[in-house]
């Protein structure tokens, strides 16, 4: 019967939408993790910058590159840390935007799913009555 076909179509539609929704939610979760990581890094870098500012001119600054502790110039270290901070904030903003988009998509998909569900229910109710 056409109605059962329509029913099955609707159900398949619903499943695919549910899959999409799950994917989007996973993306959102990953983005959240990333965001957390970036936030922590940003905090750390800002701490480092604070300490570096407190250092006097000739103090030795070393950077750990792999197993090697390399002596660095204070000014150079300052510049590096600052650049890193900028980079991390930019990344953070990017991730935020992606989270936002994904959430929007998630909401729209959810609405579509609900509508589908309602249609499904009404059809089933109609069938039950008939």
């Amino acid at each position, binding site marked *: 019967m056409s109605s059962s076909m329509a029913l099955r179509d609707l159900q398949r539609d619903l499943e695919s939408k549910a899959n999409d929704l799950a994917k989007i939610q996973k993306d959102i979760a990953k983005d959240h993790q990333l965001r957390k990581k970036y936030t922590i*890094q940003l905090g*750390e*870098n800002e*701490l*480092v910058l*604070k*300490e*570096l500012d407190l*250092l006097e001119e000739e*103090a*030795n*600054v*070393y*950077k*750990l*590159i792999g197993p090697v*502790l390399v002596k*660095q110039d204070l000014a150079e*270290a300052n510049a590096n*840390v600052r650049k*890193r901070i900028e980079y991390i904030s930019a990344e953070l903003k990017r991730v935020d935007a992606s989270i936002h988009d994904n959430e929007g998509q998630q909401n729209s998909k959810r609405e579509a799913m609900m509508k589908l569900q309602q249609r499904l229910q009404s059809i089933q109710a109609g069938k039950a009555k008939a």
Partner: protein
Amino acid sequence: MEPPQTKGTVTPLASLFSEQEARKAASYVEERIREKREEMNRLQGFVDENDNLISLVKKLPEKLHHNIMVPFGKIAFFPGRLIHTNECLVFLGENYYTDRTSKQTVDVLRRRDKTLQSQIHSLKAEIDDFQTEASFFANTASEAAEGVLEIREEYEEEEEEDSGTVLQRGVEKEASGVTGGEAGEGEDKDDEFARIMSRLNELEMEEEQEEGEDGDDGSVEERELDVVKGLGDKTDDNGIGYEESVLEKPQYLQKEDQPRGGIPQQNAETWRDFQATSAVSRSKASSSVVGPQKIESPIQKPEAKFDTNKAFTGLIVEHTHNLETNTHGKMQPSGSQPSKPVSRFKAQRR
């Protein structure tokens, strides 16, 4: 007097917040609390380590070199010496190190400590919030389980309320009365009318004896409130009933202003007639809007009683000329016509 008919709803709490869900929510919140607590313990561990480090670094410069057992790999030690005891390589973060003296190291450590403490504080605040949430959910769950009912009633006037709140109730009642039903209350109104009028008459008598106090806000308001209270006893949740009582007030005020023996009586008579006829046909919204105007119109001299009667019909008769001539401060509502039904009392108070 008939018992006040309360419009209310009685709902078992279980229907509003299903017990299951409440418990689930409570457990979820508790989970979050546990996570936060773990986090806090971690941070506390850091703080302790930090303190130990500070004391160690402070001790180091006391000797030129310390004899220690140096760890060698994972499982061995060999005796050695710790030299240059004043210098420390401090880890700043992000793979950056720097040489510092012990004193400077201690400063760095202290700053780190402060950061940790602030983090702990915020965590604690979060935990407290979650706690309150959890307790609320738990309470709701237990209440729902016990079958506690949530009872909502429309706000009723009570006898013992003091005068200030009566005016408040006036506003609320009018607001709620607008939504109340008008149908089928004609008979009640007539009864109430009779009662209200008789009460008014009594008060008028008292008033005449007292020889009316023009411009005495206090006594006027007291009287008004007495009237309202008396009416309040008789009125049920019927918004109309109350509005009528409110509408009677301007009439009463008018009498206050004109302490003439016979006239108040007459006014009452004619006014009662008009009230009776206009009661059913009057719409609440218009009557409340008419209010301020009515207050103004009754300010007139005896001949104004005719205007008053006119004003009390179901029509909105705007006596704009009255507005200009009205100099009685206490009767003057604040300038513009209130767009929403404001109690006359409030209007007058201003």
